């Protein structure tokens, strides 16, 4: 019986998780087409321009996902360190003037502009998940000590955060630090430290907002003010938020109908990227948006179920990392477009336009599937 578990890669993939992931990829593609066709038409003359590119990456991503699922995830352990070093190298590369590609005052991309570009931060996220899972799983109870459980990881996250803030890339930093921190917490940090960490972050965030409101800090003031009331400057700084809220609110319970959104007609900026969920809300209404969030929730629940049933600590932490990353990103994206938190540019997994991100997301799903294949049979009794 035990021998069975040894045969890596022999079990079957977790079907519910796979289906939920495929479902989200499908819905995501469909919504991308709906959201992007007006601007695709206006900008390129071809309504399906963005959709086609995204579909190619989705197809490729699914192949990558299935292949990854076939491999034994234990094979990722030796890759952990090299990948971390490589991603830090890429993050260094991107901030060297003249190497990275700059868009909207941020230097976040590598590659050849117009042909193929990617964000090193996307790779960094994967690297962090694998490295932290590998490292933490080996530390076991030593995670409870400050010197071993906190310092090394804080240094890694700190280096990455500094490099990414230099781009600047605040949202990417938040995601990487958040994912890393969650993995550390799950991995065994002392409870008081977790409490202090969560409390500290909350205090800093609250303090920052309070100081901005009091007029003591001017950095980020516009962002905070627009978060409080985007209508203060609905034609400029608050424009995007106002347009997003109009799109979401006008959707009502049942929405305008798939494809029949109006805000995407050059009113709502980033309608295919960070604000695609506003289009979802406008077209599918509260009902459709809730169903989609529910699918995400089910994917997360099933993902964590896999984590709980994983064969080893490494598998558990890998899946926790992937799911934490996914959950954080979904939450922050929807929270931003609905005005729940101040705006930062976080894309919605499976939905937002961006081929590399989608392919990497599917690769991460593949890792979870790979873990799911080695879930031991239920112990009786």
């Amino acid at each position: 019986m035990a021998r069975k578990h040894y045969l890596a890669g022999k079990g079957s993939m977790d079907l519910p998780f796979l289906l939920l992931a495929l479902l989200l990829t499908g819905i995501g593609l469909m919504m991308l087409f709906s959201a992007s066709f007006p601007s695709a038409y206006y900008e390129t003359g071809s309504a399906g321009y963005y959709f086609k590119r995204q579909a190619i990456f989705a197809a490729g991503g699914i192949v990558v996902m299935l292949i990854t699922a076939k491999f034994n995830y234990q094979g990722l352990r030796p890759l952990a360190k090299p990948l971390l070093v490589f991603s830090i190298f890429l993050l260094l590369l991107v901030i060297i003037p003249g190497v990275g590609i700059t868009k909207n005052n941020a230097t976040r991309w590598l590659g050849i502009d117009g042909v193929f570009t990617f964000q090193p931060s996307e790779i960094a996220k994967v690297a962090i998940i694998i490295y932290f899972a590998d490292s933490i799983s080996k530390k076991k109870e030593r995670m409870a000590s400050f010197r071993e459980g906190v310092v090394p990881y804080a240094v890694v996250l700190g280096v990455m955060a500094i490099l990414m803030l230099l781009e600047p890339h605040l949202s990417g930093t938040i995601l990487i630090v958040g994912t890393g921190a969650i993995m550390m917490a799950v991995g065994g940090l002392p409870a008081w430290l977790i409490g202090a960490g969560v409390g500290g972050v909350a205090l800093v965030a609250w303090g920052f907002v309070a100081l901005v409101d009091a007029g003591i800090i001017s950095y980020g003031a516009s962002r905070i003010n627009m978060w409080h009331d985007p209508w203060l400057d609905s034609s400029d700084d608050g424009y995007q938020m106002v347009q997003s809220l109009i799109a979401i609110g006008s959707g009502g319970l049942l929405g305008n109908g798939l494809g029949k959104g109006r805000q995407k007609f050059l009113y709502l900026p980033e309608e295919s990227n960070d604000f695609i969920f506003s289009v979802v809300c406008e077209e599918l209404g509260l009902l459709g948006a809730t169903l989609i969030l529910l699918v995400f929730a089910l994917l997360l629940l099933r993902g964590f179920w896999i984590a709980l049933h994983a064969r080893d600590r490494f598998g558990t932490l890998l899946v926790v990392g992937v799911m934490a990353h996914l959950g954080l990103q979904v939450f922050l994206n929807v929270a931003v477009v609905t005005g729940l938190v101040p705006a930062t540019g976080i894309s919605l997994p499976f939905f937002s336009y961006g081929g590399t991100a989608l392919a990497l997301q599917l690769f991460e799903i593949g890792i979870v599937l790979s873990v799911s294949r080695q879930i031991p049979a239920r112990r009786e009794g």
Partner: protein
Amino acid sequence: MSSCSLLGLYKWCNTTVFDDFGGSAVAAFPSQHNRKDENIRRANRVIQRRTFILMLIMGVGMFLVLFAKLFSLQILRHEELQSEAVSQQTRSTVVTASRGTIYDASGNILAISSTAETVFLSPLELEKQLKDTEKPAKWTKAQLAETLSEILEISEESIYKKMERTFSQYEVLAFRVEEDIADRVREFINEFDVQGIYLSTDAKRYYPYSDLASHVIGFVGTDYTGLYGLEAQYEENLQGKSGLVVTAKDNLENDMLFQYSQYFEPEHGENLDLTLDATVQYYLQKGIEEMCDAFSPANGAAGVVLRVTDGAILGMASYPNYDLNAFSTVTDKTLLEQIEREEITEAEAQLKQWRNKCLNDTYEPGSTFKIITLASALEENAVDLNTTAYCSGHTVISDYTIHCSQKEGHGQQTLMQSVGNSCNPAFISYGLKLGTDTFYDYLQSFGLMGTSGVDLGGEATGVFADPNAFTQLDLACYSFGQNFTVTPLNLIAAQAACVNGGYLYEPYLVSESRDSDGNVLYRHDATPVRQVISEETSATVRECLEYVVESGTGKNGQVAGYRVGGKTGTADKGQTGDVVVSFLCFAPADDPEIMMLITMDTPSRSTGVYVSGGNMVAPYSSAIMAEILPYLGFEPSYSAEELLGIDTTVPSVIGMSLDEAKARLTERGFAFRTVGDGETVTDQTPVGGAIIPGKSTVVLYLDAEKPTTLCTVPNLVGMTPAEANTVMANSGLLLRFTGTTGTESGTVRVFSQETEHGTQVEAGTVITVRLGDTAVRD
């Protein structure tokens, strides 16, 4: 599968162990190291528990938070945000409802709306299209200027000039162009895909008869709402409700890729049918205009033609007049002179010409009011046809001496004679017989103290003494129409009640209103307000008033072929020495249908005509009635005497012997004179077939040459009819009399002549002259 439930999963977390914890599978962790095992076991449990907590936070908690936020936006704030969305995503274009048409009683259009289009260009957008390299424009500026100049008939240069104003979005090329021109512009725009030339539709109000019934119809302002007259009074009926086209647009103001539009149809305004008749109105205005030309009144004139059987207004005119299509332009001669002399500003002149003196202003009516006094006194049996009154030329009431228009007095008169003489002392005595209270009651019964109730705005209310302070002296003055004021319209409504059997009607202008599909929405209900006097009293009043025109001060109001009743009026305007002259008449006198009141305020005293209603207004009233009575279908019936003067066709007598010719001419009532001394008629003037007045003289040429020289029209004004006849016969011209038909009276003189003296005309031409009785003193 209890592990599917979260609770089961939680229990499981605390019991399970990983394979890489010391299980037989992992050699790295030998099972004998028990203390270490226990530590690892604890660490694993921590991971399990925390993963489970994270699962709850992310899979359930976050979902609930986001759902709550979405619910607040999509349900609670839905309406607010939806309206924001609609207001930015849609463009609505107003579709103007067409304003209702106003028709006269015969179906002629008095006021109508039509849409016209304004062509304008946006130089800014034209420039943008020219600079667009991706989609190059299919036109050039030169092409555009040339084509548009050809279509719109404006110079190319002016179009160029407007195109150069590249900062501008709106430059008008042509205002209110016709539809075919607009279509050609549209065609051009479409063919060359021009972005920057546009057409906008707006409505325009046309008044086909220009200055006809301008005070009744009124006009609309620049915002297309009625400002005066019926246009203002019936604003709500005429205006209709605007429609709307709502289209979806993108943020660049283009229509959205998919068509989304909603059309709210406009409700067109109601059409109005008036009682007013354009033909009647035309003659009314023509007569008043001629009267004003002759007597240059300082304060204009007014006239109302009323159907006494139901209060329908057939005509209503006020002077100074104006053209509805250019309502701000002052054209009246008197007003222009006043502006020139800087007595009034142009704005004041506009307000004056827009006033409808029939109902916006009140006046002291003077003797035409005696009809009311007469009717009241008869109804109360204070007088009857046998009553006599003595006039010494004045009477004294409460120490005030009141004079009669005839200073030497009328002597002893019957009731009817006193009406015919318009004798003030006689009417004062009738009024006194009624007493102050009864008289005052009649003022109210005749509706004189309120407004007439006509469907036109701005009706003025007269000024009357307080009932408690209504003295004998007041009563005396009121009896002959002085010391109080009424509007002409209010007065004629009361006067109509005096002759129509006693029924007081509200005067009205709109008989019917219909929606654009022709359904009748409103029809005037002509029920009398009340019966003020009896049928018998009314008949007596009619008799007296017919006498006035037949033999009294109203002689100049006679109309050949018709029985006309009437009453003259010459009222003092306070102590100014100025007067308002007026004449009221109605026909047929025995069974009245049509009544007309004309007033003229402050006529010139230097025309040589005695200043009185009987001399100044009655002759023009007669001329107007002579036109409108036959038009309205009243057949004339001529007396024998009148018949002789009726136009007759001249027989051709050329070739006949003198005797034969003589017989043919006298048989038809013509006189003749001969030129030459032959036996046969070789020529005649007028020629056979000509239609000339019956008693004219025909010239017969007996072997004599008919002279071809032209005749000079002599000045006949002021002559007796006989003198005029003689002068005309000698000049080779023919004479036709109009006006007062009693030519035998010694005081009748030629009042005016249609062809001015000194004019050269052919021999045998008929010259029409108007006779008037100069003895009339009121």
